[in-house]
């Protein structure tokens, strides 16, 4: 019997060219194409509002990483590939919200930036935070802006354009930084060395986030901030053994110290009303995420793959209850997911495997999750970076709860994305993976092997041993996080293609996606 096809384009690989962009956009049938077109108009209006401000144009000519924002609409196309109906709508709710928030972040940074807007009064209300850091310590500062320069200069550009960070990685290495360090913090350091980071803020808070690479780049960046820009930096040293009870008092103490540092340098006072308001939104986001994950344990997963990963990262870590728009998006996504679940919908005509994605994913190929389901019918039920804290924060303002709140913020900071798995022992990285395999009824594990990540690579053998013991097929997918020159996107895909063809003896659902000429693509 012929397989049921999705409405519109079914051979998605035919849209690719060997240049930067695709031949045309996808035909998704009349209603979904018109919906996508309507959302594209929204994207264009966000871009137009951004471009009309002279200071943003000035920034475009000042910062090399800004050129990558030319590729913004294409990123939305990549993440919506093959999606129809509720899945397309969920994707747009998420990514359009993130896109708008990034536009606002850029605008705020350039307003305070000494070289661009030079609004000193505004800059004095800014506290710089790491991109790779929970922003929980900003949940009680309503009048301050916790802004991350690294989000707009490093993290987002590589999602937009796979080659965006190569220049900065090279700069860092030319200045003697080790080439085997994680290219993400290395690129962040490269931007600071290359004098390409905006200059603003009254003070900054850095965190001992995920790894040796993060500590290295924090050192380079903080030295520049303190010695050249005159911006004092607080080092928030969260415990690495984050599941142990005996470290929690110290962790809460570090949060108190960070808050005291911000109060001292900005003159602002911690606002408990605002904190508990944000805490309620964090709890709501957690409830929604838990409901999505609950659906993903069934035969009809709804918010998964590309629709789960990037949104969770943004909402959990960078937003952390501070932006009302994300609460609205959470509500809409949940409604759409419930509707699709009730109708027993599937994202693609055929699901072949239920996979847990583990490890640190490739940023230059984040839409790989979309490719997995479109090309091979592999459903990425959840991923390591989406399995974050589900602890409910206290939300009622009482003297006891104020004290507990410090512990909640500490817990969030210790359990920031990635860090909650790459540190804390083999239980959080190894054992819990196999617990999730059972809970989600998965029949496959796809393990990202980020070649510069020492924290994960050390456990390679233990993952394999456990997979053999459990009888679960495990696929290693090597990559270099921010540097596609080490492993290309096709290099990433080939590892899956070879495994599915040779070990599983399967043929792709969409063969046009198996080999793609996207080496030069954004």
């Amino acid at each position, binding site marked *: 019997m012929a397989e049921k096809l999705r409405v519109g384009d079914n051979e998605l690989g035919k849209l690719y060219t060997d*240049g*930067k*962009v*695709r*031949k*045309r*956009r996808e*035909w998704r049938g009349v209603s979904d*194409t018109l919906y996508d*077109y309507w959302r*594209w*108009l929204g994207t*264009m209006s966000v871009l137009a509002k951004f471009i009309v401000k002279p200071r943003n144009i000035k920034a*475009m*000519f000042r910062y*090399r990483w*800004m*050129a990558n924002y*030319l*590729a913004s*609409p*294409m990123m939305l*196309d990549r993440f919506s590939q093959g999606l129809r109906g509720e899945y397309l709508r969920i994707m747009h709710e998420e990514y359009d919200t993130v896109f708008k928030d990034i536009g606002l972040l850029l605008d705020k940074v350039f307003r305070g930036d000494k070289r661009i807007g030079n609004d000193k009064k505004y800059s004095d209300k800014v506290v710089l935070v790491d991109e790779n850091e929970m922003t929980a310590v900003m949940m009680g500062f309503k009048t301050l802006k916790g802004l991350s320069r690294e989000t707009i200069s490093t993290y987002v550009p590589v999602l937009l354009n796979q080659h965006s960070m190569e220049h900065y990685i090279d*700069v860092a290495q030319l*200045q*003697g930084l080790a080439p085997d360090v994680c290219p993400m913090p290395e690129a962040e350091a490269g931007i*600071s*060395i*290359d*004098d390409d980071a905006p200059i603003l803020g009254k003070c900054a808070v850095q965190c001992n986030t995920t790894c040796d690479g993060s500590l290295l780049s924090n050192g*380079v960046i903080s030295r*520049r901030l303190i010695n*050249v820009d005159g911006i004092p930096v607080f080092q928030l040293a969260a415990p690495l053994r984050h599941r142990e009870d005996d470290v929690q008092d110290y962790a809460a103490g570090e949060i108190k110290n960070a808050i005291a540092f911000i109060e001292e340098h900005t003159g602002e006072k911690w606002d408990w009303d605002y904190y508990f308001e944000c805490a309620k939104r964090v709890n709501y986001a957690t409830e929604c995420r838990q409901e999505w994950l609950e659906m993903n344990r069934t035969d009809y997963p709804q918010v998964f793959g590309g629709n789960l990963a990037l949104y969770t990262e943004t909402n959990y870590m960078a937003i952390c209850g501070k932006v009302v728009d994300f609460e609205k998006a959470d509500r809409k996504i949940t409604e759409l997911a419930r509707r699709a679940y009730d109708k027993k919908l599937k994202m693609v005509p055929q699901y072949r495997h239920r996979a847990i994605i583990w490890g640190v994913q490739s940023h230059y190929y984040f839409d790989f999750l979309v490719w997995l389901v479109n090309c091979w019918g592999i459903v990425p039920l959840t991923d390591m970076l989406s399995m974050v804290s589900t602890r409910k924060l206290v939300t009622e303002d009482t003297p006891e709860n104020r004290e507990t709140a410090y512990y909640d913020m500490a817990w969030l900071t210790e359990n920031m994305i990635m860090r909650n798995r790459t540190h804390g022992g083999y239980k959080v990285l190894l054992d819990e993976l196999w617990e999730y395999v059972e809970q989600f009824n998965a029949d496959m594990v796809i393990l990202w092997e980020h070649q510069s990540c020492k924290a994960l690579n050390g456990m390679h053998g233990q993952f394999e041993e456990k997979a053999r013991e459990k009888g679960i097929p495990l696929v290693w997918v090597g990559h270099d996080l921010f540097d596609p020159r080490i492993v290309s996107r096709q290099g990433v895909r080939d590892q899956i293609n070879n495994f599915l063809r040779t070990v599983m003896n399967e043929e792709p659902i969409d063969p046009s996606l198996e080999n793609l000429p996207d080496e030069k693509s*954004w």
Partner: protein
Amino acid sequence: MKLIGKIILKVFLAVFALFAVTFTVYFFNLDMKATSLLEPLFIKHYDSMERKYYL
């Protein structure tokens, strides 16, 4: 009545023309094709800027 009909027709034609143009840009990816031509110009500009390294 005739005047109102003409106005409605003109508004309809204008909206339709706007739709036709923007939908063509959208569907044939002309926005991305145009911006992809801009990128090398920006890169050339960034490469020509004087830089001082701070380590």
